């Protein structure tokens, strides 16, 4: 009978981690639905970017208040995980504070976790105020209505509850240590929870143990639940920020990729020795569609971008189109891409691993043409993203589909392109007049 808690714990752990692995597999499957793209170049630079941007949070602090608060939550999250390791070992082995023999080091660790936990609570409260009381512009844009807003608040609530459970557990433990209860040897320093312990004055040892155990169990079960909530929330960035910054764009922001299939065709067109009447090679595969009208036309890094987005809206708040009241919001581009990818993923799950056309696509059903044509390609969104997401690449890929597959550019742009084709300038001037300026005063 004495092993029942260990067994229950082991089962909870296996279920929690097992379900998480299942979600990770689904995530990875969905991302791999994207087209292949070569990102094997310049590994040292990629590692550096990951270390600086994801690990070092360098782009978060561009906005100092949010950046500082975020670093607190981030450091708290990572460091308090050392405590989670102890909790897991205790749970499996039936021990209590298995790292306690570390002595002074242990005291220091527990003490720092407590201070961090308190700071995390403070930061999360600030985050909540920014979202719900101050109502910062970027948190109340139209695409945030409904689930995205609730999702964001839910995450904040979960974080506060987890931290409070951790401190309550320590507070009860501290009180038990003071009372000299069996199994509760003196261990750890409790700079924060000693004040919680005061609330427990006068409680019996058995009640204190009940509180300590309840908080302990709820804390670890809460962590397992949160781990599994990630996939359904906007919060995947805590994991995906690392690969995403690794695979982020290394080229100058202004450089757009040259479409290789187009290069081949243009070369053929310009080759004077090519036979214009040559019969098509029967074995030749159908040429790829140009540009993107759905998520499967995007590459896997773009899909990874979509899952990494935590909807902070820094991109949207820097976007000149959005700032001047246009429909375009780079954050919405990423949210739409993810929503559509999820829909495609579910379709594949429901149809035995095969995507069955559902009469929907990313273009028009999620992202409107009006949004796409409002972009100035200024890269402000790319620059603003703290985790190297590139909404612009998706916008351009979709414009390519509109122009090259559907000839559906706005008529002004068709005029511009007509001029370009006929006289080598976006305006209707004769190419022979290009040097006239040199003769004018």
């Amino acid at each position, binding site marked *: 009978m004495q092993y029942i808690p260990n067994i229950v714990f082991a089962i909870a752990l296996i279920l929690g981690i097992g379900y998480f692995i299942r979600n990770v597999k689904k995530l990875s499957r969905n991302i791999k639905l994207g087209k292949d793209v070569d990102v094997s170049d310049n590994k040292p630079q990629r590692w550096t970017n990951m270390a600086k941007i994801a690990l070092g949070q360098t782009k978060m602090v561009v906005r100092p208040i949010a950046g500082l608060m975020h670093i607190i939550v981030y450091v708290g999250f990572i460091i308090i995980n050392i405590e989670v390791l102890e909790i897991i070992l205790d749970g499996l082995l039936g021990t209590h504070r298995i790292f306690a023999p570390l002595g002074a080091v242990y005291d220091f660790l527990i003490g720092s976790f407590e201070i961090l936990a308190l700071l995390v609570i403070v930061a999360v409260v600030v985050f909540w105020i920014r979202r719900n009381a101050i109502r910062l512009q970027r948190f109340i844009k139209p695409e945030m209505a409904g689930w995205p807003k609730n999702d964001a608040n839910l995450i904040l609530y979960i974080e506060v509850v987890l931290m409070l459970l951790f401190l309550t557990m320590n507070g009860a433990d501290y009180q038990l240590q003071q009372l000299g209860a069996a199994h509760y040897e003196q261990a750890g320093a409790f700079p924060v929870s000693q004040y919680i312990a005061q609330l427990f004055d006068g409680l019996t040892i058995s009640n204190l143990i009940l509180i300590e155990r309840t908080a302990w169990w709820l804390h670890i079960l809460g962590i397992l639940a949160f781990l599994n909530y990630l996939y359904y929330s906007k919060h995947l960035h805590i994991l995906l920020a690392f690969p995403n910054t690794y695979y982020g764009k290394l080229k*100058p922001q202004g450089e757009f990729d040259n479409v290789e299939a*187009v290069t081949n065709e243009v070369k053929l067109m310009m080759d004077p020795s090519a036979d214009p009447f040559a019969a098509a090679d029967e074995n030749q595969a159908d040429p790829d569609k140009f540009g993107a009208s759905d998520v499967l036309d995007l590459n896997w890094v773009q899909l990874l971008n979509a899952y990494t987005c935590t909807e902070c809206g820094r991109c949207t708040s820097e976007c000149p*189109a959005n700032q001047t009241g246009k429909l375009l919001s780079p954050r919405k581009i990423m949210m739409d891409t993810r929503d559509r990818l999820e829909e495609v993923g579910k379709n594949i799950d429901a149809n035995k691993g095969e995507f069955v056309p559902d009469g929907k696509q990313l273009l028009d059903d999620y992202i409107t043409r009006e949004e796409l044509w409002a972009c100035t390609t200024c890269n402000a969104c790319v620059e603003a993203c703290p985790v190297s997401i590139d909404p612009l690449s998706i916008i351009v890929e979709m414009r390519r589909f509109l122009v090259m597959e559907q000839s559906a550019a706005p008529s002004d742009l068709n005029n511009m392109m007509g001029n370009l084709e006929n006289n080598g300038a976006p305006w209707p001037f004769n190419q022979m007049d290009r*040097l006239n300026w040199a003769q004018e005063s």
Partner: protein
Amino acid sequence: MSDNMNVPTMASLFAEGKQPEVLFWVGCAGSFDDRAKKITKAFVKILNKAGVSFAVLGTEESCTGDPAKRAGNEFLFQMQAMTNIEVLNAYEIKKVVTACPHCFNTIKNEYPGLGGNYEVIHHTQFLKQLVDEGKISIEGGTYKGKRITYHDPCYLGRANNVFEAPRELIQKLDAELVEMKNCKKRGLCCGAGGAQMFKEPEKGDKDVNVERTEQALETQPEIIAAACPFCNTMMTDGVKNKEKEASIAVLDVAELIANAQDL
């Protein structure tokens, strides 16, 4: 003034068996747009004054394809690019300077993948080099003490990390350089990029160039300096929209330097 401009073409130099040190890529705006032509001329006058060995392609130049590429027309872009690359390679061009950040970005970043490899620099970088080498001097004069705010063109600044050359030039004028709320990496677009120059804006509350002009006006400048012909147009329109054209000039960095030298 045309009599004091010397604008050799690649074709004429080639016929004489000469090769200039640098090709001046004028661009469509610089060739055809009345406002941008003034920038072109200002830059050529500085080149002449500094005795730079340069040439232009003249009628052999064609759009780099930038607006087509940003609009999504990769075919048209690559047609333009490959045609231009054939011309540039035939003349064995090694170095290109241009006053247009869009041409700059496209030739520098997107042409190499299509067979066009050149050292490409923006005219503000080139002017900075001329100053550093002592080929031109621009201290004091007309702009001494004037409040000048500099607008970062997206395709020069954020897209290619050229922030300092234009600023150093403005400071060399002994002018007071004042920064806008959004500058350098966080510079706000003028509204012309991504082929927006050639179309009506989508429905919204405001035009982007008006928003950016408001940011510029907050610095209470006497001059708004730009380094892109399209930004220049957008900011000029913005200043007109605010009815400030009598008190605030929108000038290219090359024009500031040419004016300071009385060219």
